[in-house]
């Protein structure tokens, strides 16, 4: 049977999976009060729940990776759902960032010494990867209003 | 729990393939033989297309094992095991 995915999908899922899982873990470890030294450099402050979400996205990619290695065609659906989820989270983080920025103008007293970069998160910059992914595979996300991932495309 | 519908006898005399729908493993296909159970849920199950002779594909169980998802007549339907138990089916190869 011909596979409906190529090396690009496999490589993408491995890369995105590892990055999301790793950064999510750092979020969680920091959230437990252990200093990894990465929080300043990579904008990963302690955030257990947010970290959990990144780990989940990572897991979606990694399970897709595993299934594709096994030659399962349906494995590719994990890659596409992973891409959609990471874009949703990118949007959420961007909105929160914007909201905080707006709030800092409204109640400046609460935001003394605050910079908008404090709300910059890996969920945002990792999302760029998925943005590239959806642009590259955009014909797979059908323009008809149903998420038909065309098979064997 | 309240109101558990009368369970079907699981051992059927004449046909070994007869089972209730909740016992069918995912990825198998079955043919509906009969819908039993209480009136209101039975009528709804019939209305949703689980009429005798209809082919039903068992798709998957929910992550916690219940409810179960089925595909029939080109659409996806989920039933709790309690409801699926009232549908008598026969496995098709």
């Amino acid at each position: 049977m011909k596979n409906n995915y190529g090396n690009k999908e496999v490589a993408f899922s491995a890369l995105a999976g590892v990055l999301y899982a790793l950064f999510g873990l750092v979020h969680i470890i920091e959230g437990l009060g252990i200093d990894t030294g990465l929080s300043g450099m990579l904008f990963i402050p302690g955030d257990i729940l947010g970290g959990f979400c990144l780990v989940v996205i990572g897991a979606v990619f990694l399970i897709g990776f595993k299934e594709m290695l096994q030659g399962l065609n349906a494995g590719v659906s994990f890659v596409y759902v992973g891409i959609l989820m990471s874009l949703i989270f990118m949007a959420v983080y961007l909105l929160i960032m914007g909201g905080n920025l707006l709030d800092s103008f409204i109640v400046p007293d609460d935001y003394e010494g605050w910079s908008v970069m404090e709300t910059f998160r890996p969920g945002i910059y990792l999302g760029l990867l998925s943005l590239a992914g959806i642009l590259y595979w955009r014909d797979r996300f059908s323009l008809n209003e149903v998420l038909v991932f065309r098979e064997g495309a | 729990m309240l109101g558990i519908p009368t369970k079907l006898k699981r051992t059927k005399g004449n046909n070994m393939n007869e089972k209730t729908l909740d016992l069918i493993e995912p990825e198998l296909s079955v043919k509906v033989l009969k819908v039993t159970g209480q009136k209101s849920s039975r009528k709804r199950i019939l209305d949703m297309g689980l009429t005798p002779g209809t082919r039903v594909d068992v798709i998957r169980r929910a992550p916690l094992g219940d409810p179960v998802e089925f595909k029939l007549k080109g659409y996806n339907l989920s039933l709790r095991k309690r409801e699926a138990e009232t549908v008598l089916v026969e496995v098709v190869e």
Partner: protein
Amino acid sequence: MTDKITVALTGNPNVGKTSIFNAITGSKQHVGNWPGVTVERKIGKRVHNDIEMEIVDLPGTYSLTAYSLDEIIARDFIIEEKPDIVVQVIDATNLERNMYLTTQLMELGVKLIIALNMTDLALAKGDSIDSEKMQEFLEVPVISTIGSKGNGIEGLLDAVADELHKTRVTENIFTYDSDIETRGEELEKVLNNDPYFAHYPSRWFSMKLLEGDENILKKAKESESYPEIEKILNELDADSFEAKIADQRYKTIQTMLRQVCDINTEHLSGSDMVDRVVTNKALGIPIFLSLMWAAFEITFTFATPFMNIIDIFFGWFAETATNLITIPWLSSLVGEGMIAGVGSVLIFLPNILLLFFMLSLMEDSGYMARAAFIMDKIMSKIGLHGKSFIPLVMGFGCNVPAIMATRTIEDTRDRLITILITPFMSCGARLPVYVLLAGAFFGRDAGVVIFSLYALGILVAIVSAKLMRSTILRGEDAPFIMELPSYKIPTLKGSFIHMWERGKIYLKKAGSIILIGVVGVWLLASIPAPGSGGVFASEEVYGTTNSVIGVIGQIIEPLVAPLGFDWRIAVALLFGVVAKEIVVGSMGVLYGAGENEDTLSDILAAGAMTPLAGLGLMVFTLLYAPCFACIGVIKRETGSWKWTLFQLAYGTTLAWTFAFAVYQIGSRIGMLA
């Protein structure tokens, strides 16, 4: 001359009925409730070819055998109100099950038009449907539409206008086996002889009797000819007729569909692929929880700046008004009573709009059904539906939008229970109370105490749900028979309309109750106690022992004394019904700490209150009557003062009992003394 007609829009759930309704009526919609129930009634107007059409959007229904309240309403409207035209919206990607309703509408003999919706999706799926042939076969107009893009709407309205002047004689397209037909004719004869049934299409009525429709049977029982009907029904095997009728309707549909369309079945659809991931055994629940977190963050964190704008604006507005009005009591009434009251209504609007925007995205995309599918096992353990999970989680942010979110639960009883237990989910406004008290009394263990309060709330909710299920709201669990519709990309327009409707309903219906509550409490705090000689709304009176509320506090002090509370706590709790976070501010004033929370914390820790009473107060704050905004939406969503008052009484009784237990048991065993 302009004709005025009524057009009913019906169809299965998830067929894009709302998008057709929106496309026809645009913004000219009115959302209200059906008389006597809390099911939504949407009516819109549209003038087309000089005909004034009133479009009624009926609740989605799979069949004309009515099970749920939604379906009874839809059916009764068509039968009793006799709309001039009935438009059935059909999902072109799911013809067979959709047309089951068509067969029944045709039996009913109504003037039917079919809107074959989502034809673009059917095409994308690889189906081809010959709508002209379908029209020939059914002898009713079949119009292809794409509701989300507004395609085919003009054609649909043209068809409505054309059909208006035609006489229809096509009720007998669907024939059943001879044994059913024979029985049907016998029944029809009886029905036709009894003027009681003149109102109903006799063929449809007789088929419903044969199917054993309980609602119809009840209607028949009220007639004089019921003995004759009963005789016929007793002669036949009801169960087999029921299955046979459903079966033959489906067979007829299959026969027709084979002739008019070619459906591509050999194909794993996009929806199937998404479902493999989001309902995956290992990933399903984590993915759902992640998405809930995202929705929660948007609803509550992203809303913060907007809430601050409202807060600051009303603060400024109240201050300006207070300064402008020179009569002291009037300026206080306007500033602290009315403007603050309106502010306390509007402050929730950002939460409500954002939450409903996201719920609408989840519902329209099809994910909501999956969420219910995933969480149902857990919720069924307390006798609820999977759909109850989302409102309960949202309750941790704010109970007000959470209670409004129970709209997605179809079963009335499940919905009512969910509404009644949502206030036990500890909302964000209760947190400041915990932070203050736990901080003052428990220092390093404050975190554990606060966590335990959240856990207690969940526990009380679970036990209450089970209790209500087995006592006052007893009965069968509603059968869980739920369609998992295929995924669709939601339209922004649809989500915005939905969000705006919710916002309007909140402001109109809940707003007045909140406002009355807030102004009422202000009055109680401002009116000087008889004989105190104070001046109305003066600072010496407001909220002190010289005010009515202070007197009430002193009167009820004996009631709360066993909990270790004094009159000041009683007054703070009364104020807390305006908004829970006010408990802290009121205590500050009453204990002479002013607005400064640190001072209050020191005063409390220095012995103004025992730690046990503090713990009791936290428990009491968690469980007692929710805030006015919450009371307002409970009234709006249950449509009943009885249930609203029940919630208040139940919660407050629980609060008293728990706080009593904490204080009394704690003091006996010498804990925290």
